[in-house]
């Protein structure tokens, strides 16, 4: 019975473990394999190509430009989202009349599919009949219509802003969880210790939210970096590839130009970028007080310490 008892946990998780390995691992394996072979447009592997696909990708100016744009996109959307979500979460954590309504409103965009949001916003910023032009005109801030998405800078700014908007609900939820985990008495103690509102934020809220900020940043980076529908629907990467990010670039290479091998190489690069980012990020923001993780001292030691102190 003993030996069964020892192995049964592994035995029990084995089916789901192998299913996960298959479902998650196989596509990764397949993409990596594709990136090392020449592949025809129907997905058939032809001959081993070493790093040829990678050199091809990196010698494509559009690919390099897209890497830069992906960085701008990810940093702006995640940065903007985190910076806005902390104050929003703090407000929603206060006790005020109508708080649950406000919480629902903030979380509402989450309930709408990203594609739908993108379509609606495309209409809003439409050059001919969009409500944005209409509003600006009737406020007298603008004369005539402007085709927002035809200008690369305007288009990129707009998708970034909408990217922030749709990332806020999830991020606010993370921070609300974090804020709820900070006991009120800490703030009361800080108040009696003489800390002003700003100092309480700086010395209590910020450090205690740190693990939640880490999670919010990493999850949002992974999500935003790979976020396809917004840009695809609103700008299709245009004008002139100037709003393309890696995911839309790879998609175009694969399904518009039929270059599955180059697309696979691009995907592998993306995957590596995310892995490297995540490792680096957790390394940089790691807990610098390893002592804090040491085992807790048993309570029995308390009385001995008391006696020492009297000496």
């Amino acid at each position, binding site marked *: 019975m003993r030996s069964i008892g020892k192995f049964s946990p592994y035995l029990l998780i084995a089916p789901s473990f192998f299913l996960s390995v298959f479902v998650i691992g196989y596509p990764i394996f397949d993409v990596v394999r594709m990136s090392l072979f020449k592949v025809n447009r129907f997905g058939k592997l032809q001959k081993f190509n070493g790093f040829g696909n990678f050199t091809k990708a990196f010698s494509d100016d559009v690919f390099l430009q897209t890497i830069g744009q992906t960085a701008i996109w990810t940093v702006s959307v995640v940065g903007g989202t985190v910076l806005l979500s902390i104050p929003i979460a703090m407000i929603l954590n206060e006790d005020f009349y109508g708080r649950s309504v406000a919480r629902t409103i903030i979380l509402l965009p989450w309930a709408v599919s990203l594609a739908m949001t993108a379509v609606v916003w495309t209409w809003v910023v439409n050059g001919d009949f969009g409500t944005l032009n209409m509003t600006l005109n009737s406020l007298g801030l603008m004369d005539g219509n402007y085709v927002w998405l035809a200008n690369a800078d305007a288009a990129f700014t707009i998708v970034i802003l909408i990217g922030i908007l749709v990332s806020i609900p999830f991020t606010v939820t993370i921070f609300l969880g974090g804020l709820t985990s900070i006991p009120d008495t800490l703030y009361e*103690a800080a108040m009696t210790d003489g800390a002003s509102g700003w100092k309480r934020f700086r010395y209590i809220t910020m450090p205690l939210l740190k693990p939640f900020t880490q999670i919010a940043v990493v999850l949002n980076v992974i999500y935003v970096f790979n976020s396809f529908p917004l840009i695809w629907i609103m700008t299709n990467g245009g004008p002139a590839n100037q709003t393309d990010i890696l995911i839309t670039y790879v998609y175009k290479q694969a399904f518009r130009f039929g270059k599955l091998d180059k697309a696979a190489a691009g995907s592998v690069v993306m995957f590596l970028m995310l892995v490297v980012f995540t490792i680096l990020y957790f390394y940089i923001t790691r807990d610098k007080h390893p002592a804090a993780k040491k085992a807790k001292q048993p309570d029995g030691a308390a009385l001995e*310490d008391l006696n020492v102190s009297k000496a």
Partner: protein
Amino acid sequence: MSSINVRDVAKFYGSQQVLFDVNVAIEHGEFVVLVGPSGCGKSTLLRMIAGLESVSGGEIRLGDELINDVSPQKRDVAMVFQTYALYPHMTVEENMLFALKMRNQSPQECAVALKQVSEILGLGDLLDRYPKQLSGGQRQRVAMGRAIVRNPQAFLFDEPLSNLDAKLRSHMRTEIRGLHQRLGSTSVYVTHDQVEAMTMADRIVVMNGGRIEQIGTPIELYDNPANKFVAGFLGSPTMNFIDGELRVEGNDAAFISHHQHEFQVDSHANMGDLRKRRATIGIRPQNITLTPVDSQGDAMVGRVRVVEQTGSETISVVDFLDTEIIVQSPRRQLLNPDQMVLVEFDMAAAHMFDAQNGLRLN
């Protein structure tokens, strides 16, 4: 150090009033304990002094300054919380110096204060630890250290010992008292433990249902409780009460229990001229003696139900006059359950309370 003056203070939560006409004058350097049953408003009053709750009526002064509307960070009072409220992301040292840092004190001043306080509390070896690496007792003293290091106008304690085991609690009791003697700091200490109140206080404030029942030194309250509530609240085991009727005729007074047993009582001015009134006699377990007897005839005979020996003293529960009384004998008395005993009250030590309003009549 400052005095604290609480005058006519009231507190409402919405339309619900939880404090009524609270008046306490705490003198400079005094150690005052607020005690009362759960929900009587002790914490609320303490938090109002700290500035963590608004004052709905009346005034609170720290020294001469009216502090009703002064924000907590500007009141120079330190509070020790029941849960300690140590900052989990800071070391013991950072926790203790936080208040000084908030007041922009120089590193030299901080170092001096830290050294002094960690010596007083014996925290020297723990300065680099985080709160979660400390035992309950150690956390408790860090919380104390955090309060002491600032040298505030007053200390406020909200049940600081209730999370400790009995042994550590009694140890910390002495230690807090010792600290107070050493620092001479004005302190307000909240507890619902009457032993803590009796042993630690210069003066005790007994609260009940949002009102102050009585204020006085532990001995005053023990010997001369203003009413039945205070009498029953302080002292351990609690006072025995027997309901009945008080008859006063001139200088003669007698208490007749429901069982028609008569106790002679010294008459007292407070008893008034009323010939008869419903009253309650109160007598502490220490003021009753038991003598084993054989017969059952006398009304003053009771039946022992439970006997607890602590080694040096004997605590017995006795069925007597239809109620149950607790008797504490200061020596080892060998009694058996179901044994018949003669019950004698030391009437000089007995208290008489009005059955209606609970006020003491003698």
